Structure formats: structure tokens, C-alpha cells
């Protein structure tokens, strides 16, 4: 599933559409500690987190995450929105808990493999 296809599912509310939306999502990734995400976020992941600050976007960019999904109804602050635009990263949000949001992505991805 590409970033564009995930956006088009309408499951999440889009905050910013970044570059390379034709990129494939490798897997969902859940983590709220940026220091851990920095070392562990898999390349091309859909990163689900409740940390809606600009440093999340910096880490997403540096680890080459495909997109960021803010869970639990968290909205990015203004600085984070700016960073998303600057770094051209796709950011979405949802009222779902982290696990459920990630599960939804995982189901879509495993459905493709089936």
C-alpha cells in the first residue's frame, strides 16, 4: 500500500500531504519516545504516535518514515505543521488509540499480501 492509497482509504484525517506519496508503506510502527524511534523506526514505516511536536517530524524525516499518524485525537502544534511542510512529510491524525490505528494499517498491508 502506498502513502496515497492510505490517504485515499479515508480512515485518517489528512493534515499535510508530503512528497513521494507513491512510496510503499513497509509496516506500521508504534513509539512515543523519540530517542527510541530514532534508533528503531523502520525505513518506510507508517509511524503512529501521540507526540505531535516538531521533533517528531524531524525524527520521521531523518529515519525515512513514509508518514506520521497522530493517534488519540492529538493534533500537531503550529511548529510541527510548519516542519511537516518544510520536510514534506505526510501527516495524518485519528481519534483511534495507537494500537488500533496501527492494526488498521497492518490489516490493509496483510490484506495485500493475501
Amino acid at each position, binding site marked *: 500500500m502506498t502513502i496515497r492509497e492510505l490517504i485515499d482509504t479515508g480512515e485518517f484525517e489528512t493534515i499535510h500531504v508530503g512528497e513521494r506519496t507513491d512510496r510503499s508503506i513497509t509496516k506500521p510502527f508504534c513509539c*512515543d*519516545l*523519540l*530517542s*527510541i*524511534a*530514532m*534508533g528503531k523506526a523502520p*525505513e518506510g514505516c507508517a509511524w503512529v504516535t501521540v*507526540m505531535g*511536536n*516538531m*521533533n*517528531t517530524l*524531524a*525524527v520521521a*524525516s*531523518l*529515519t*525515512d518514515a513514509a508518514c506520521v499518524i497522530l493517534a488519540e485525537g492529538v493534533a500537531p502544534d503550529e*511548529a510541527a505543521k510548519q516542519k511537516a511542510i518544510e*520536510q514534506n512529510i505526510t501527516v495524518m491524525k485519528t481519534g483511534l488509540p495507537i494500537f488500533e490505528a496501527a492494526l488498521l494499517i497492518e490489516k490493509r498491508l496483510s490484506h495485500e499480501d493475501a
Partner: protein
Amino acid sequence: MDVITFHYTISPDDFTRAGEASSDVKSKLKKMGVTPEAVRKVAIAMYEGEINMVIHAKGGEITVHISTERIEMVLEDVGPGIPDIDLAMQAGYSTAPDAVRSLGFGAGMGLPNMKKYSDEMEIHTVIGEGTTIRMVVNL
């Protein structure tokens, strides 16, 4: 062999700009056609160092030397120094203040991640004078 050098000044306590130097190096390396794996290693190792300088050391200077064989990052600060490097290298050990933790940092993974993502790493630190860290990613 030509070596290209880039230099960055890291501002203290400025989390709005933390990561800009690493992002800049990342995009330059990508344009130079460096492999995605090496770009990722440099980006992660340097970002962790940059964040450490912002949190602990009142900023500092980063110099990046790029050749066809290796990327060398030298991070110099005039911060408090690291009293016990072995302890600081342990995953999970952190002295970051609460305000920094609330931003999602301070999990004690900075130095361990720097070591993990670089092929060589040396730390020179003097209490009260500062710390210099040299990291190399081989191409």
C-alpha cells in the same frame, strides 16, 4: 582524493532548530548519490549528537568531512563534559531534564544510537571544558 567539508553551528536550547544540521547533511548526501543505508546511518548518528548538544552542552560546532570512502562527523562543544562515559553509553541512562523528556527525548539512547549507527566513534571529554565526539560512517 577530494574531501568536501561542511560546518554547522548548533544553537543551545533551541528545539525548534534541532535537527536542521542533520537534515541538511542528509539532503546533501542524497544529492551526492550516497547509498540510502549510509545516509540513514549518518542522519541518525548526527541527529543524536546534535540533540545532545542542544540538551546538555549549550550548543556547539559540527564539522562534516565527506570523501568517496567515508563520512566523518566531528562534534565539538564547550559543555559540562561527561563524568562517566561507560555509564553514559549504557542504554537507558539519561540525565536529561523533565522538560526535555516531555518532548519525547531523554530515553538514554543518544550515545548508544550514535555508536550503533557509526562504524567508528571516539569520545574525548574534559569535565567543565567540553566534549568532542568523532564518528565515521564508511562508504
